[in-house]
C-alpha cells in the first residue's frame, strides 16, 4: 500500500469522525432543555467536527500531490473565536434572565451583566 493510498484512507476516516461529532453536537443542540446546557453541545461541532474535516482536507491535498497546510488557518481561527462567541451567547442568556441566576460574585462585586453601572447611578 503506497503512502498516497494511506493518506486517502486517513482523510476518509477523519471525515467520518468529524461527521460523527457534528451529528452529536447538533442533536445535543436540539434535544437539551436549558439554554445554558444547549450552549455546551455545538462546541463539538465547531472544534472537533470541523477540525477533523479540515484535517481530512489537508490529507486529501497531500495525497493528490499538492501539499498545503492553509486549512490550519481556518482551524486556528475557529479555535480562537469559539470561546469568544460562546462567552457572548452566555452573557446574552444571563442578561435575558432565561437561566438560573449565577451565584453571587466574591467580595462586594456585582455581575456587570446583571447590574449595569447605569442602574446603580439611577438608584
Amino acid at each position, binding site marked *: 500500500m503506497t503512502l*498516497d*493510498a*494511506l493518506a*486517502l*484512507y486517513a*482523510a*476518509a*476516516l477523519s*471525515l*467520518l469522525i*468529524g*461527521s*460523527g461529532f*457534528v*451529528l452529536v*453536537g*447538533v*442533536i445535543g*443542540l*436540539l434535544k437539551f432543555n436549558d*439554554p445554558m446546557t*444547549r*450552549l455546551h453541545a*455545538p462546541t463539538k*461541532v*465547531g472544534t472537533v*467536527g*470541523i477540525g477533523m*474535516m*479540515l484535517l*481530512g*482536507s489537508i490529507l*486529501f*491535498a497531500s495525497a*493528490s500531490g*499538492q501539499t*498545503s497546510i*492553509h*486549512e490550519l*488557518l*481556518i482551524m486556528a*481561527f*475557529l479555535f480562537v*473565536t469559539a470561546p*469568544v*462567541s460562546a462567552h*457572548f*451567547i*452566555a*452573557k*446574552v*442568556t444571563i*442578561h*435575558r434572565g*432565561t437561566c438560573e441566576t449565577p451565584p453571587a460574585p466574591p467580595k462586594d462585586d456585582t455581575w456587570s*451583566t446583571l447590574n449595569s453601572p447605569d442602574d446603580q447611578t439611577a438608584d
Partner: protein
Amino acid sequence: MSPDEFLSIAVIIAMITLATGQVLSMIRFVIGPTSSDRILALDTMVINAIGLVIVLGIHQGVKVYFEVALLIAMLGFVSTVALARFILRGDIIE
C-alpha cells in the same frame, strides 16, 4: 475497498450529516424559545456551512474553496458577536 471508493463514500456521508445538521439547527432556530438559542443556532449553521464548503472542495478536488471557508468563518464570528452585542447593549458600535 479501494481508497478512492472509501473516500467518496465518506464524502457522501459527511455531506448528508452536515445537511442534517443544518436542518436540525434550523428547527432549533425556529422553535427558539429564547433569543440566545436563536443566536446559537445561527452560529452552528455558519459552522456547518464551513464544513459543507470544505467537503465540497474535497469532492471536486479543487483548492479554491479554502478562501470561501475562511471568509465564511470570519463573517460568521463577526455576525455572532454583533447579534449578541445588539441584544446586550441595544447597539452594535457605540
